[in-house]
């Protein structure tokens, strides 16, 4: 069962990456999807990241009650956790729910209402036209959202930590600016790129092969989100093991 699905997924990807019929139409679709995935998710990612950053700062401060440890370490731990894990992974899991379910249900509805058949009859490579712009938008916009998420998590930490009295602003800023290793950002961006691909392609796969009606479209959407989340966690582990 797993190997059949995985084989179908790979064959679908092979069709997705065929030469586009007309680049200008695909370009328009890519811009539309970038707007939908990127701008459409901005608010949600901003709220989640800011609060996670603030809460993380307070929890780290709570756990590091010792005169032997400088308070600036709170900012440093928050920075590295946000860059390496929280911003890429939490953002990806949230996007899997928001963007993934939207992609699955959109493509699934097109399947059950014969719109995909209509594309194929016209001689259009339906996987390419429907899925390629989503994947390209995903691998571009998820890293952008992750960068934004990192900044907001660090800012949230500053505000949350200062307001709660967990850490002073100067200690926190000293922490997030000290001993910075740029490689951690590279790891975050690689993760974001892979997560962007997983979210869009897995959701599209579940929508593309849906059979039946509205009920099955809903089920495919749920299944797409669940599988995407598992894939995100698995690839997160693999990338962390490989890159750190």
């Amino acid at each position: 069962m797993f190997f059949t699905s995985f084989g179908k997924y790979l064959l679908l990807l092979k069709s997705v990456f065929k030469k586009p019929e007309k680049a200008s139409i695909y370009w328009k679709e890519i811009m539309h999807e970038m707007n939908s995935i990127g701008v459409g998710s901005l608010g949600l990612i901003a709220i989640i990241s800011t609060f996670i950053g603030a809460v993380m700062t307070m929890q780290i401060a709570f756990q590091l009650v010792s005169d032997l440890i400088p308070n600036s370490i709170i900012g440093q731990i928050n920075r590295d956790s946000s860059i390496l894990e929280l911003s890429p992974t939490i953002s990806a899991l949230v996007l899997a729910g928001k963007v993934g379910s939207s992609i699955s249900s959109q493509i699934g509805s097109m399947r059950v209402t014969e719109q995909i058949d209509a594309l194929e009859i016209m001689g259009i490579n339906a996987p390419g036209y429907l899925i390629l712009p989503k994947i390209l938008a995903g691998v571009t916009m998820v890293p952008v959202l992750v960068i934004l998420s990192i900044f907001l998590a660090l800012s949230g930490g500053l505000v949350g930590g200062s307001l709660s009295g967990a850490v002073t602003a100067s200690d926190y800023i000293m922490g997030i600016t000290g001993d910075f290793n740029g490689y951690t950002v590279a790891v975050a961006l690689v993760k974001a790129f892979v997560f962007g691909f997983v979210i869009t392609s897995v959701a599209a796969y579940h929508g593309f092969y849906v059979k039946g009606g509205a009920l099955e479209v809903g089920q495919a959407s749920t299944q797409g989100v669940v599988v995407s989340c598992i894939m995100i966690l698995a690839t997160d582990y693999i990338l962390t093991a490989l890159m750190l």
Partner: protein
Amino acid sequence: MITVQDIYKSFGDNEVLRGISAKFEPGKISLIIGGSGSGKSTLLKCMVGLHEPNKGKVLYQDQDFTRMNFEERIPIRKEIGMLFQNSALFDSMTVEENITFPLQMFSDMSKKERIDRANFCLERVNLEGRNELFPAELSGGMKKRVGIARAIAMTPKYLFCDEPNSGLDPRTSIVIDELIQDITEEYNTTTVVVTHDMNSVMGIGQYILFLYQGEKRWEGSNKEIAHTDVEELNDFVFASPFMKIAKEKF
């Protein structure tokens, strides 16, 4: 001309088509009729390449469509127009965008030429001025007409219609039938219609192929159908008391 030779198609253990052969001529409306589950939609989907037959051939002129890969089929597909049962209009596009989409994808027409063509097609189906409406804003009959307008946008040589009258009132059904007939005559298209609408059978059925449990049971014209002695066909066509009376009057 489309020739179907000895088509077999099964889904798992369920054999849906068994050895169907037929010829569909240009300038004529050919109807595929039969009860639910008789295999008529499956045959249509095998003809347009949405299903791959297990055995047999579909020939467009002399080209074997069944042996072609996706890329090889594209030139033939550009000559195909299809009207789907539920119209299959793209929800995210306006009426005009639906019609101009294949032109934008496959022709070098300028935007103005594409819009002119869309206006012509809309005029042809009596929907002038509805360019900016979305499919959700259209009635069932209007959706079918937009579907026809999209199908004829590329001036097709082959027109396929999957149950064009389903869900429509009798008057709108006749309008759709007349439209299909006019287009077939005007463009000399090879038109294949899957239907179980008896008004269509009697009205526009120049060639009729009757399927029964996946097999070809009868072929002929609407003039011959009243005089057939094929029991399954008589049970199908003249099922209602009204049609039985009508048959006696023939």
